[in-house]
């Protein structure tokens, strides 16, 4: 009996010390992590909508939407963080859309755990910035009507198609699917008049 009490006591003490220590560190690290995320979001917004100068955040039930404005305060589009499951895990990305939601202005993948060397090509690569067929670059100017599509092993013909990455069709399709689903949600919000298009021309 005494040993059992001692066992429990020792484990409890270790547990309490560890919990206390961790909560202190968590208090220190949480704001830092949040600040990083905010900075990352901000950079991503201006990356996918390069003409943007300022933005306002709108939080709705299922989606955060950033309305982006140019220097004259005119709405030029929306930046929306989409999220969904890829081939190996969650993909988080920032997509830029024109204010009528009919065209993508840019895409930046923020987080992914796809297969190194294959699926990881969904992330942009500074050295491939000039290559229009590099996966994230293809999203510039792509049309969202009726839906973004994926073609394999050939250059896209339609204005709404994206060429999949060789060897990573699933990751490519996953990105496109996440985009399509997200855009659908946005359209619905737009139809219900919930999108903040103050000053936006429709």
């Amino acid at each position, binding site marked *: 009996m005494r040993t059992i009490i001692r066992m429990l006591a020792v484990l409890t003490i270790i547990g309490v010390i560890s919990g206390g220590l961790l909560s202190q560190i968590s208090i220190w690290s949480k704001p830092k*992590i949040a600040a990083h995320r905010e900075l990352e979001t901000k950079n991503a917004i201006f990356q996918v909508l390069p003409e943007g100068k300022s933005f306002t955040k709108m939080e709705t039930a299922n989606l955060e939407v950033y309305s982006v404005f140019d220097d004259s305060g005119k709405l030029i589009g929306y930046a929306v963080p989409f999220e969904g499951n890829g081939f190996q895990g969650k993909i988080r990305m920032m997509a830029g859309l024109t204010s009528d939601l009919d065209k993508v202005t840019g895409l930046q993948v923020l987080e992914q755990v796809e297969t190194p060397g294959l699926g990881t090509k969904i992330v942009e690569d500074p050295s491939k910035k000039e290559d229009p067929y590099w996966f994230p670059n293809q999203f510039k100017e792509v049309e969202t009507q009726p839906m973004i599509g994926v073609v394999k092993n050939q250059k896209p013909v339609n204005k709404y198609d994206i060429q999949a990455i060789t060897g990573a069709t699933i990751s490519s399709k996953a990105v496109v699917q996440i985009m399509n689903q997200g855009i659908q949600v946005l359209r619905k919000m737009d139809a219900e008049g919930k999108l903040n298009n103050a000053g936006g021309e429709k």
Partner: protein
Amino acid sequence: MSSKLSLYKEFTKGIWEQNTTFKQILGMCPVLAVTVSAINGLAMALATTFVLVFSSIIVAIVKKLIPDQVRIAAYILIIATFVTIVDMVMKASYPDLSKSLGPYIPLIVVNCVILGRQEAFASKNTVFRSFLDAVGMGAGVLLSLILLGAVRELFGSGTIFGIQLLPDFYEPMLVMILPAGAFITLGLMMGLFNQIALSNKEKQRKKTIEKYLSTKNSINDPVGV
């Protein structure tokens, strides 16, 4: 067992003689998973060493207070605490690195190297010796992770630590970065090191035989090495 070793030896044994990856074949998941590049290997090894060193120190300090029956649970608790600390600090201070190491940082908790050292060493030795042992083992992990990461990065992307080393016409071998490449590279490297060790042993054996023959000058005696 090893308390007779000199302090210097206590530190160096982990680097090669008892290298956890190549000799003891422990803690393989991080070795294989994060070594797509040398920098990832370095970061993972540093994180592992941090956890290993601090857990060893704590375990060596409190070893007498922990009842035998719950020692494993207690060690795991201590290790998990330090891993969480590493994880939070990395997320706060090096967000990019923490992203590329992904879910493998938390898996340090179940890295058998760390639990193994607590059970086999820190729970039986003084604080200072445990510290030396942990640093040495950590150095061994560092060596093998960087080695493997550098080889895979070199052949898989033509770079080491992001610096282009192979000429442009070199077509990177994608397989080196894929999971399959990790297994194959590690297998080949392990075989290579075994081969070196074997041929060293062979040389030494020959030398001993020669010595034996020259002193005894007899071939009738069986040579047992």
